[in-house]
């Protein structure tokens, strides 16, 4: 039945040749009063990054690609270690969890995903923001927490902060790119090819407070190779507290269209 539901969601969403209107792409926030001076030699526990890489079919469906996903997972982990060490922090990979620990970890991963979704939806980007969160934005308040339960996560005792990373990339297939060009040349419609979402969050492993969150709906860097991954991780960490990292170039698209410039809005086909 899950399959059926999924197909229904997809079928109803197909009309999305027509993509959602493009809103602000990138946003980050730091908890008030939190500061991490450079070279403070903190230990950062990295939880299993959620990485999913695939292609975007002509009709806009996500096509999972195991090889790309595996490569991206390895590349991102390597770049992360490299960049954090330039910040003077030590990156520790969260140990494999078993039994009850695995369940607690799983629940916290899901909790982090839910909380960061809420931040992105209701505080960060225009469209669906809550009045209270808009007020918070004006007052520069960023107050979210996963609760003190994080202190019991495997590996939390020996680290100061926890880092969660989420990445989802869909590279436009050849068909999608051709469609994009023809749609731009013919009826002048803007079709989006490729989708590159990412967010990273830093959590205090004592209090569970969300200290920093960076979300970007149009990330750069091709995560399938080492160089591109480093650029991606740079972008994820560019506003990291105490960070001296800057994204190398201001190129929003990791997946440039074949010919036409990347359009920002898309119109319905009729």
């Amino acid at each position, binding site marked *: 039945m899950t399959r059926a539901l999924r*197909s229904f969601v997809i079928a109803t969403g197909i009309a999305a*040749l027509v993509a959602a209107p493009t809103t602000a792409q990138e946003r980050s926030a730091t908890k008030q009063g939190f500061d991490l001076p450079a070279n403070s030699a903190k230990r950062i526990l990295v939880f299993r990054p959620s990485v*999913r890489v*695939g292609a975007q079919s*002509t009709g*806009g469906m996500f096509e999972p690609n195991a090889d790309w996903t595996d490569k991206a997972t390895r590349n991102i982990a390597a770049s992360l270690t490299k960049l954090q060490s330039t910040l003077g922090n030590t990156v520790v990979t969260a140990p494999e969890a078993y039994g009850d620990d695995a369940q607690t970890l799983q629940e916290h991963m899901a909790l982090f995903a839910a909380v960061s979704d809420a931040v992105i939806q209701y505080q960060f980007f225009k469209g669906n923001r809550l009045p209270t969160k808009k007020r918070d934005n004006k007052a520069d308040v960023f107050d979210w927490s996963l609760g003190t339960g994080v202190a019991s996560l495997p590996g939390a005792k020996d680290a100061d902060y926890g880092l969660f990373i989420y990445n989802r990339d869909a590279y436009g297939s050849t*068909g999608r790119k051709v*469609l994009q060009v023809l*749609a731009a040349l013919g009826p002048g419609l803007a079709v989006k090819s490729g989708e590159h979402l990412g967010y990273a969050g830093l959590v205090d492993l004592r209090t569970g407070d969300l200290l920093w969150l960076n979300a970007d709906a149009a990330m750069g860097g091709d995560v399938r190779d080492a160089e591109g991954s480093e650029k991606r991780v740079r972008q994820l960490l560019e506003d990291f507290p105490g960070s001296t990292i800057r994204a190398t170039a201001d190129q929003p698209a990791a997946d440039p269209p074949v010919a036409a410039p990347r359009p920002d809005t898309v119109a319905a086909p009729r």
Partner: protein
Amino acid sequence: MTAMKTTAIRWAVIVGTIAAAITPIAARATDPVLPPPYAGVYQPQGVDEIGLWHDDDDDEHALAASPLVIRDEKLTAYVKRVLCDTVGDDRCAPIRIYIIREPAFNASMSPNGTMRVLSGLFLRVRNDSEFGAVLGHEFGHFESRHTLAAFKGRRSGTDLLAWTALLASVAPSYGMARSYDDLRYSVYGSIFRHGRDQEREADRLGIAYLNHSHFRPQSASVMWHTVMAEAEASARAKGLKKPNFKTIAFTASHPPEAERAHYLAALAAPDDAGRADGADRYRAALAPWMPVFLDDQIKLNDFGGSDYLIENLAETGWTAPLWLARGDLYRTRGAQRDYANAATFYANAIDLDPTLAPAFRGLGLTLVKTGRTTEGQDALRRYLALSPTAPGAKLVRMMVPQGTNP
């Protein structure tokens, strides 16, 4: 244009395969259907399938640590046993079973060989044969690699729509817009129809496994009659119109129940109707969990459906947990008229098992509600004596006069 042509061709191929898939079901075979020979352990092939399996591996990683999973080795081993008895030991060996606590009638199998069984399924089947029929059907989806085929079908359909949307917008006229709309609905329709045809194919494989096993294949059809009867009972109790089990909605994910019951009965090997259905083994394996699952079902607030399920399970003999569940069902609906019935059901439960603490609690609460306070308090005292540390014990103690506590 090339891309468009390939899409069109791919689409034609899909439609062709669908037609091919339906035909064998429509034609009633004279011999009982049997499963194809076992082809050995399967590994995914091609970028799409490997990608789907990779995603599924991640899902399973999360599922294995999910708080929703019932981690009872005995129950899981029993489910695996029934699956193996149905599809054969060689086929079932690589399958992982996860029992999820959710009071709904479903089970599923995903591309990499993860089988999810929802706890609500256990109330809708009454023996190994009916249970095996469901597991065999799900395994059929896995063996026929339906997720992959469905994925490819959806992709072809949406690709086709993308191109035609483009063509329609090049020549923006009323006629074009209408043709595009027509095509859109026909593509959505084919995606749903493809899904239903996969269900029919899985049904056919499921019954083939049953024919080949030592279970009674006629049970598959019986189970669908149970499902229809439950839906009817549920609608009746709510005063709703009788559900229609024959029509197919545009977005229906499965063929209608009546159709399934009909062709499953026709495909079952007639000579095997006398086989044992394995009701005893089923009851024994589920005994520790039945009260929990029944309790989850009662909390769905579906009086007619729940009452039907309890009576259906009691067809082979009432047990104390079944009477208790029925008492709880009536007591929690909570009309004054329900308490009289509930008291009787609790009393029946106590007759069969005089140590069933929750039955005394239910009986006590019910009697107090109907004004028989003294008898009610006696029952509550008995409950506290039987389970003094129960979570609700403190609350119950407040309902019993001070100084007379056990």
